[in-house]
């Protein structure tokens, strides 16, 4: 049954050329990021491979190591192309991990609350609602500031800022499902409650959750970039795309635009592509909004 659905879903997806193009872009970027250690001309984290006198050079410059810096170099002498590839990897890593954690925590909380009901549900959803009325960036900012720099801390901060969306959606969907008859039917069988939750309720809650997930992945990437840009998040030795942009910011006014702009372009392409794919997935899952 799932096979037929997936097939039809893909067929419809394929009709939108732009969405397919965007998907290709996303996959390409992911591939590039994964292959970064293999294809990058330089390892930007290896401080010993950096030559300071090669710093802030324009695109096309041939460095003292003998290879061409296609996109120029940054303030530390890092080859920008390599830095972008590695930065992509980090951005994707963090964005996806944070998203995955937010998803698991949020869905467990939301669906669990709907399942357990009673006071727990009321209090839990109250907290979620409260958190939803605060902008994610503020939350992430504060948590990040308090926990300091580092990959893990950043992921925690992002996940903490995002789980609420998943919790609310999962809760709403689970509440709608639990009053449906098939749940009562399943509960009347010897199946344990947990089994009912996992085998029956959760799969039917998936569509709206997928919709939220597509939005949140793009958000996580953008949020991470913003935090890194502001100086929180990752240490300067392992820059993500946001940090790269921040590093180059001061050189913008003196005309050395490439240090900020190229990482920026890479970031934008990633986010827009993810959003386009997400839009298409959303349109297909919510056919009522189409026409």
């Amino acid at each position, binding site marked *: 049954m799932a096979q037929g659905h997936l097939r039809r879903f893909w067929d419809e997806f394929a009709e939108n050329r732009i969405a397919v193009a965007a998907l290709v872009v996303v996959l390409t970027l992911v591939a590039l990021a994964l292959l970064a250690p293999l294809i990058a001309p330089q390892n930007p984290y290896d401080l010993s491979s950096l030559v300071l006198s090669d710093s802030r050079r324009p695109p096309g410059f041939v460095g003292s190591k003998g290879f061409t810096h296609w996109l120029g170099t940054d303030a530390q002498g890092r080859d920008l192309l390599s830095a972008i590839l590695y930065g992509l990897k980090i951005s994707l890593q963090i964005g996806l991990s944070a998203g995955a954690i937010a998803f698991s925590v949020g869905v467990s909380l939301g669906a669990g609350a709907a399942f357990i009901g009673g006071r727990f549900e009321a209090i839990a959803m109250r907290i979620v609602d409260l958190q939803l009325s605060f902008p994610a*960036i*503020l939350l992430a900012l504060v948590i990040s500031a308090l926990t300091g720099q580092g990959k893990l801390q950043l992921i925690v901060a992002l996940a903490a800022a995002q789980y609420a969306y998943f919790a609310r959606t999962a809760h709403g969907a689970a509440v709608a499902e639990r009053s449906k008859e098939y749940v009562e039917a399943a509960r009347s069988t010897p199946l344990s409650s947990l089994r009912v939750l996992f085998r029956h309720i959760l799969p039917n809650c998936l569509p709206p959750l997928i919709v939220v997930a597509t939005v949140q992945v793009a958000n996580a990437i*953008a949020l991470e970039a913003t935090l890194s840009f*502001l100086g929180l998040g990752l240490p300067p030795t392992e820059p993500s795309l946001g940090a790269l942009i921040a590093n180059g*910011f001061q050189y913008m*006014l003196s005309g050395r635009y490439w240090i900020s702009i190229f990482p920026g372009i890479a*970031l934008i392409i990633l986010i*827009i592509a993810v959003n386009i794919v997400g839009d298409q997935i959303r349109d297909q899952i919510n056919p009522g909004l189409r026409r």
Partner: protein
Amino acid sequence: MAAFIVQRIVQGIVVMAAMSLLVFLGVYAIGNPIDVLLAPDATQEIRAQTIARYGLDRPLYEQYGQFVWRVLHGDLGRSFVFNMPVTTLIFQRLPATLELTLAAVLGATLIGVPLGIYAGYRPQSRTARWIMGISVIGFSVPTFWIGLVLILTFAVTLGWLPAGGRGETASLFGIQWSFLTGNGLKHLLLPALNLSLFKLALMIRLARAGTREIMLTDTVRFARATGQSEATIIRHHVLRLISIPLVTVFGLELGSTLAFAVVTETIFSWPGVGKLIIDSIQSLDRPVMVAYLVLVSLLFIAINFLVDLCYVALDPRMQKS
């Protein structure tokens, strides 16, 4: 109606109390504030003096108690870094942020809503597709990147507008505002534009979705059946019906915009509260951090409350008493 207001106020107080506790614990319990104030080679004596002066050696609950007491009296402490009352510090910089935020939000709404309504009214037209395409960009691209591009284009390359700072201000009601001077406006334009883009995209999408939905209802069909013109339908039916969800989002996004001002202020060196918080996070200026968070919480609760009031005022169905 009165019961509703009282209930919301009580809720607000509870939330404030919880928030203040959380914020206080978070900020004070993690890390050592002493290290910000003193050079590593300060003598024990100076250390002890500083600790006593700032009350950093008292047990945490006592510090919290003192904190709440002081806050209720309007004293939010003294900034470690600037060595002046936090309240003064914040209120000095508040007008700049308010100005920026209001300019951004008004711009986004006044431009975004009409565009969105058009896109919802004629969804298949080329103009509509363009509008939606651009809104995707405003939606996905992080604010700071757009700021970068704006600076690069308008300040560096074209040299039309300044790259940062607030410019000249003039006084109104005793407060300095920059929109009152020509130079000030020039400085305000780019950051306001930057800040507004995300919200603009949001407003466009919302207005479009709302308009689409309403155009398909029986209400519109009935109106058409009575011979009302399309213009009338848009003005009296669509606009009225759409305003309810729009106002809700507008209010909620107001808070979000205030938060995003942090980024814009950093990029454009706009001397507002946002830049203050970033700087104080980096320098671990705890009183400022705490005060900012408490004030922001208060602001959010107030905004949510006002939005709820507007909702009730706009939708006659809620007025059943």
